[in-house]
C-alpha cells in the first residue's frame, strides 16, 4: 500500500534517516521503535507528509502510495488516506466537543452531511465513546483524549493509521484500552497501523512486523522475534527470554509462562538449597524525613485527597501509583507545600511546608513538576546551574557538580532545549537539589524516556537515596517501579488503597505486576535477580 524507498533525511549538521526502505501492506500492524531522538517521529512525519514542512531539513527518496508518488503531496492532501495522530492529542484538538472533533476532518474533505452524521455515530460506537459525545475535550482523561484523537482521523476512513507514542502517557489500564482498539481496527476493518513507541512491552504482542531505527539512521525491518533477539531496546520479557535461552523469543506473557516451567523449577530448587530469595530492603526504622497524617485536600468544593497517610524515610525510593486523576500530583504538591489542606498535617524536618513560605519550602523539599522544562528559562546549562547556585546561596559550582554526578558528560554550553529528555530531567533535579533538601518529589519523570534513559534515571534516584534523600516518584511505569522503588503507594479516588514493599504490593495487583512477576510468580521482580540466581547455579 505505502512504500518508502531510499528515504534520507538530514538537518545541516546530522543525518536522521539514512536509506530507509519500508513497505506496509493492507491490514498490517507495524511497530516502529528506537532510542529517543533516533528519528521515530521524523519517519512518521515523512509518511504523513508533515516532514520536512514542519521541521525543516532536506528529504530525499520516494514515497509511493499504490505505486503513485505522493512525496510532493502535503499532509492535508494525504488526510483522506493516511490518518495521523500526534504525540500529545490534547494539543491537536481544534474544536470544543467530542462530536465536533470527530466531524472536523470530514468537514475538510467536504463529505455530505448525511455521511458525516452516519460516520460520527459509527465511530463513537467503534471506540466506545458514545457517552462522551457532548463532553468538553479539555475535561477528558488521557485515555479518553487518545481515543477521541484516533476517532477524529478514523472518520475520514484512512487506510493507514499512523500513531506517535499513543500509550506512553497513559496508565496501564487506559493503555490496554487504546491498544485493544488498534487491534480491533486491524482485525475488523483491515486498517493498517504504524505505531511508534519506545515502551514496547505492551505493543510487541500485537505487532506483525517491527521496525528498529538504529542510531545511525538506518532501519532493520523484520518479525518482532528476530529483531528482539539482538535489539538493544527490549522489554523485560525479552531480556528474560534471552537469559533463559528461549527460542523463538516469547512475545506475550502467556507464551513465556508456558516456557518458564523448567526455569521456575530451577529457581525454586536453588531457593530450597538455601540460596537467598530476592527480598525487599528492610523497613526503615529511623524518623521519617517527611510525613502526612490524614491529609485532606480539596480543589474548590471537590475533595481530591480524602485522608491520606504517608511517610517518607531517608534512603528510600517510593513509587506513587494510581490511575490518571487519582490525586497523585495533588499529593506531591501538598507535600511540597504549595497546596494548602482542609485538614490533617504535613511535616517535613519538623516544619509544616505550607506555612513556612516559598524560600524555606525549597529547603525542605525539591520538586520536579510534570514538564521539567517549565523550570528552565536560561540559554545554557551553565547559566541555569549558576542561577541555581545564586538562588540557593550554595558555593559556586555546586549545581554543576551535582549535575555531573547525575548525568555525566553534558556540554555546559548546550541550550537546555537541546538536551535529551533524560538530560533535561537531570538538570531540573540538579537545580531543585541545589538547596540540599532532604526530600525529592518527582511527578511522572519517566514520560518520554526510553529504556536506557529510564535505567539512568533509576540509578540516579538510587544514588540520591543512598546519600540520604527520601525520594517520592509518581509514575505509571510498572517496570520502572520494579527496577527502582523500595515501596509502592497506590492511590485511588484520593485514598491510599495499598501501601507496602514493592514486591508485596505489585505481586498482588493485576495491572501493576511487572512482566517478570507475571511470568515467574511472586518473589521475582526483575531480570537481574533471576540472572544473579542462575549465575550462582551455573557456577
Amino acid at each position, binding site marked *: 500500500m505505502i512504500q518508502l524507498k531510499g528515504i534520507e533525511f538530514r538537518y545541516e549538521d546530522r543525518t536522521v534517516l539514512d536509506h530507509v526502505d519500508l513497505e506496509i501492506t493492507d491490514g498490517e500492524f507495524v511497530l516502529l521503535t528506537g532510542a529517543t531522538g533516533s528519528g521515530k517521529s521524523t519517519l512518521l512525519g515523512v509518511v504523513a507528509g508533515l516532514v520536512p514542512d514542519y521541521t525543516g531539513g532536506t528529504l530525499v527518496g520516494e514515497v509511493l502510495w499504490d505505486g503513485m508518488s505522493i512525496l510532493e503531496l502535503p499532509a492535508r492532501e494525504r488526510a483522506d488516506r493516511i490518518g495521523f495522530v500526534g504525540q500529545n492529542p490534547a494539543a491537536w484538538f481544534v474544536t470544543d466537543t467530542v462530536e465536533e472533533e470527530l466531524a472536523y476532518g470530514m468537514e475538510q474533505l467536504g463529505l455530505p452531511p448525511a455521511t*458525516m452524521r452516519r460516520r460520527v455515530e459509527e465511530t463513537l460506537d467503534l471506540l466506545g465513546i458514545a457517552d462522551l459525545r457532548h463532553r468538553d475535550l479539555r475535561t477528558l482523561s488521557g485515555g479518553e483524549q487518545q481515543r477521541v484523537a484516533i476517532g477524529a482521523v478514523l472518520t475520514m476512513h484512512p487506510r493507514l493509521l499512523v500513531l506517535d507514542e499513543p500509550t506512553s502517557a497513559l496508565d496501564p489500564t487506559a493503555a490496554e484500552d487504546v491498544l485493544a482498539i488498534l487491534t480491533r481496527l486491524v482485525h475488523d476493518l483491515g486498517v493498517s497501523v504504524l505505531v511508534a513507541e519506545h515502551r514496547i512491552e505492551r505493543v510487541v504482542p500485537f505487532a506483525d512486523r517491527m521496525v528498529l531505527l538504529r542510531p545511525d539512521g538506518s532501519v532493520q525491518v523484520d518479525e518482532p522475534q528476530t529483531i528482539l533477539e539482538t535489539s538493544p531496546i527490549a522489554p523485560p520479557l525479552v531480556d528474560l527470554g534471552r537469559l533463559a535461552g528461549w527460542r523463538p523469543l516469547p512475545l506475550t506473557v502467556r507464551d513465556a509462562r508456558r516456557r518458564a516451567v523448567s526455569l521456575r523449577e530451577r529457581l525454586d530448587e536453588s531457593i530450597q538449597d538455601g540460596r537467598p530469595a530476592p527480598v525487599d530492603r528492610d523497613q526503615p526504622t529511623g524518623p521519617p524525613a517527611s510525613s502526612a497524617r490524614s491529609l485532606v485536600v480539596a480543589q474548590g468544593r471537590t475533595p481530591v485527597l480524602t485522608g491520606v497517610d504517608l511517610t517518607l524515610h531517608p534512603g528510600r525510593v517510593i513509587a506513587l501509583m494510581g490511575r490518571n486523576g487519582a490525586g497523585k500530583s495533588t499529593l506531591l504538591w501538598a507535600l511540597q507545600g504549595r497546596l494548602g489542606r482542609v485538614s490533617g498535617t504535613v511535616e517535613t524536618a519538623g516544619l509544616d511546608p505550607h506555612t513556612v513560605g516559598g524560600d524555606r519550602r525549597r529547603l525542605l523539599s525539591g520538586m520536579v513538576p510534570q514538564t521539567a522544562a517549565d523550570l528552565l528559562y536560561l540559554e545554557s546549562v551553565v547559566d541555569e546551574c549558576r542561577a541555581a547556585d545564586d538562588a540557593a546561596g550554595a558555593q559556586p559550582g555546586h549545581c554543576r557538580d551535582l549535575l555531573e554526578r547525575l548525568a555525566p558528560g553534558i556540554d555546559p554550553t548546550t541550550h537546555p532545549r537541546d538536551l535529551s529528555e533524560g538530560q533535561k530531567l537531570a538538570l531540573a533535579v540538579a537545580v531543585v537539589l541545589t538547596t540540599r533538601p532532604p526530600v525529592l518529589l518527582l511527578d511522572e519523570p519517566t514520560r518520554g524516556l526510553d529504556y536506557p534513559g529510564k535505567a539512568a534515571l533509576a540509578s540516579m534516584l538510587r544514588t540520591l537515596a543512598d546519600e540520604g534523600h527520601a525520594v517520592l516518584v509518581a509514575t505509571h511505569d510498572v517496570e520502572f517501579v520494579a527496577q527502582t522503588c523500595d515501596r509502592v503507594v497506590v492511590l485511588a479516588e484520593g485514598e491510599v488503597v495499598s501501601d507496602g514493599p514493592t514486591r508485596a504490593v505489585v505481586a498482588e495487583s493485576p495491572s501493576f505486576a511487572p512482566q517478570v512477576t507475571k511470568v515467574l510468580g511472586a518473589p521475582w521482580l526483575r531480570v537481574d535477580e533471576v540472572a544473579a540466581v542462575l549465575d550462582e547455579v551455573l557456577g
Partner: protein
Amino acid sequence: MSTSPKRVRFPRELHPVAWWTWAVGIAAAASMTTSPWLLGLLVAVTCLVVVSCRGDGPWARAFKLYLWLAVITVVIRVFFRVLLGGSEVGHVLFRLPSVPLPEWAAGIQLLGPATREQILAGLYDGMQLACILLAFGAANALANPKRLLKVMPPALYEIGSAMVVAVSVLPQLVDSARRVKHAQELRGGEPGRIRGLRRLLVPVLEDAFDRSLALAAGMDARGYGRAGGTDPKARRVTGALMVTALLGTCVGVYGFLDSTTPAWIGLPMLGLGALCAVLGMASAGRRVQRTRYRPEKWQQAELLIAGSAVLTAVLVWWVGRTSGSIAHPGVEVLPQITLLALCAPLVALVPILVAPPAPTVANRTVPRSAPDAASRRARTPEEVAR
C-alpha cells in the same frame, strides 16, 4: 397560554445569527433613546432573556462580567459629571469644595456644587452606554462565539478557522502561565520584576510556540486548507473581481467624502465596489469544498427572535420620531412615558416564549427507561440470598 399542550420544545442550539440580530436590535433601540424608563426596561428585558435562555457553556457565564462593566460605566459617567460639574443652574443637591485651577484651564471647574440635573444627565448617558454594552454581552452569552465564526461565508472559511483557534488559545495560555509560575516557585532566585517576567515568559512562550506548531500540524494532517479543484481561470476571475471591488470602494469613499468631485464618483462607485466584492466572495467560495456537520437551521423561532428585537428598535425609533420628549426627556422634570413606548422594549421578550431550551449537560443525558434502569441496578444482598 400555549395553544396546543402537545407541542414540546426540544432543546437545541439556536442559530447564532438570530441571537446577534436580537442583540443588535436592542443596542439600536438603546442608542435611540435616553429615557430612563425605556433604558431600564431594555436592561431588564436583556437580563431576563439571558437568564432564561442561556445554556451552560463557558461563554454563558461571561454575562456577569458585562453586568459589572455596565455598572462601572454608569458610575464613571456620574462621577465625571460631579467632578467636572460646578454649574449653579438647577437644584443643588450638595456642595463640594471647588478646586481652583490655573488661568490656562479657564472654563473647567473641578468639583463645586453638584446639581440634580447634572447627575441625572450623567445617569441617563451612562444607562444608554450600559444598555448597549449589555446587549453585546447578551449576544456573547447566548450564542457560542465559535459557532458564529463558523457561519462566515465559505470564502472567509480559513480566516474564520484561524480566529476560532485564536479564541481557544487564550485559556490554554492562562493554564500554561499558571503551570510555569508554580514550577518557577520551585527554584529560588531573586524575583525582580524584569527577571521574574522573563522567567515566566520564556517557558510560556516556548510552550505556546510548541503548541501552535503541533496544532498547525494537527490541522494540516486532518485536511485543513485542502486545495480542492481549483482551475486557473476561476482563480483569475476571482482575483479580477476582488481588485475591482477594492478600487471601486476606494474611489467611491473618496468621491463620497469629497464634495468637489462629481456626484457619479461617490455612491455609484461605492455600490459597484460592493457588488464586485460580493461576486468575488461568491466566486472564491465556490472553489471551497467544505461541508458543515450538523449546521443550525434557520427556523421559525430564529425568525421570531430576530424579528422581535428589530421591531423593538423600529418602535423606539417611531416614538422618538413622533414624540421626542418621550424618547429624550429633559432632566428638569420627571420623564413621561406612553403606552406605545412602554410596549416597545417588552416586544423583545419574545425569545422567552419561543426560544427552545438551550442544550445543557443535564438535558442532553437521556434518562434510562425505568425497567432498564431497574435491571441494571445492583442487586441487594437480600435479593442475592433469595
